């Protein structure tokens, strides 16, 4: 039996929120280690939104954003995407490499962003894997910098297979010393069948 996102009840939403919380907590720890600074995190916001509402949170369909996309492999199939504004992306790189004064995206910053995405999504997925006792791995990253609408079409289409809504987990990371904020969005998109596998392993029947 597969589930429609519209029917996501409060409890399942809570579980997904908790997964988001733990996953993002691990991601924040990984980020703190990487930049060797204390990193705080706001409570993740888990939203179920209409397709057309999603680009608004990033400033509209034509805003240039950076998406780092991974396939999920193992017991759960699907994908995870880490999305952030170009501004947040450059902030993140400058935090990671102080003094580099990155102001634009080039080959060097792209490869740095892929690595950051890899570490964040990897720690996210490993906490999901630990929580569910399922074997889940992520693929090599693929990165795109383009219009928000275009990049969001990828998770939207995948969610489109199960319904007319999209589930997103918004994380705000705050670097404590200079109070720099980085807003990142995780889109965890299990394939239709994997949704069930995931929830079942958490003891939730749907």
């Amino acid at each position: 039996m597969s589930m429609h996102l519209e029917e996501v009840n409060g409890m399942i939403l809570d579980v997904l929120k908790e997964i988001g919380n733990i996953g993002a907590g691990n991601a924040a720890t990984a980020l703190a280690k990487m930049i060797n600074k204390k990193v705080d995190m706001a409570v993740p916001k888990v939203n179920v939104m209409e397709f057309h509402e999603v680009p608004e949170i990033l400033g509209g369909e034509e805003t240039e954003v950076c998406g780092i996309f991974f396939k999920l492999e193992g017991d759960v199939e699907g994908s995870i995407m880490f999305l952030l504004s170009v501004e947040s992306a450059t902030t993140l790189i400058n935090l990671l490499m102080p003094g580099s004064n990155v102001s634009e995206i080039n080959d060097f910053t792209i490869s740095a962003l892929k690595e950051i995405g890899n570490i964040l999504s990897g720690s996210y997925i490993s906490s999901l894997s630990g929580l569910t006792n399922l074997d889940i791995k992520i693929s090599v990253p693929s990165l795109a910098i383009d219009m928000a609408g275009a990049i969001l079409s990828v998770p939207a289409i995948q969610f489109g297979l199960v319904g007319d809504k999209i589930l997103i987990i918004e994380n705000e990371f705050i670097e404590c010393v200079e109070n720099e904020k980085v807003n990142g969005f995780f889109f965890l998109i299990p394939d239709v069948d994997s949704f069930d596998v995931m929830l079942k392993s958490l003891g939730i029947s749907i």
Partner: protein
Amino acid sequence: MKSLIKVGMADLKTATNPEVLTTLGLGSCVGVCIYDPITKVSGMAHVMLPDSKAIRNNSNVAKFADTAVLKLVNDMVANGANKRRLVSKIAGGAQMFSFSSKNDMMKIGQRNAIAVKEMLKELGIPLKAEDTGGNYGRSIEFDSVDGSLRIKTIGHGTHVL
């Protein structure tokens, strides 16, 4: 100033002279533009998936290539277009992220474009121009005055079909 009518994701709309239909940030989705050059009735659909029959939850007809094109043509005819005069232009169907595997889901843009073209052919609507594929997003404006399709991108220029 021409009035712009915005078409969202999994949505379709019709317009009349001198309105302009627009959809922003097409990625793997396909923008289908249909035009009657005499009455200048125009229509646009923002298609997400190729086939309504492959999915159980298919109540939103604007989401799928097969049902969206059919609904758009019917709506246009209801607004005064003549089905035999209709011509079309399409844009989008990109692959935003690339992977080496043969995963069908990753080639969804290409499959969307193919499905739209098949449906247009089935309805006997000639395809006048297309700008599909690639790995970048597109914003499009379809002008009901002359049926021109303006395509904007980030880093791949702006052009008119």
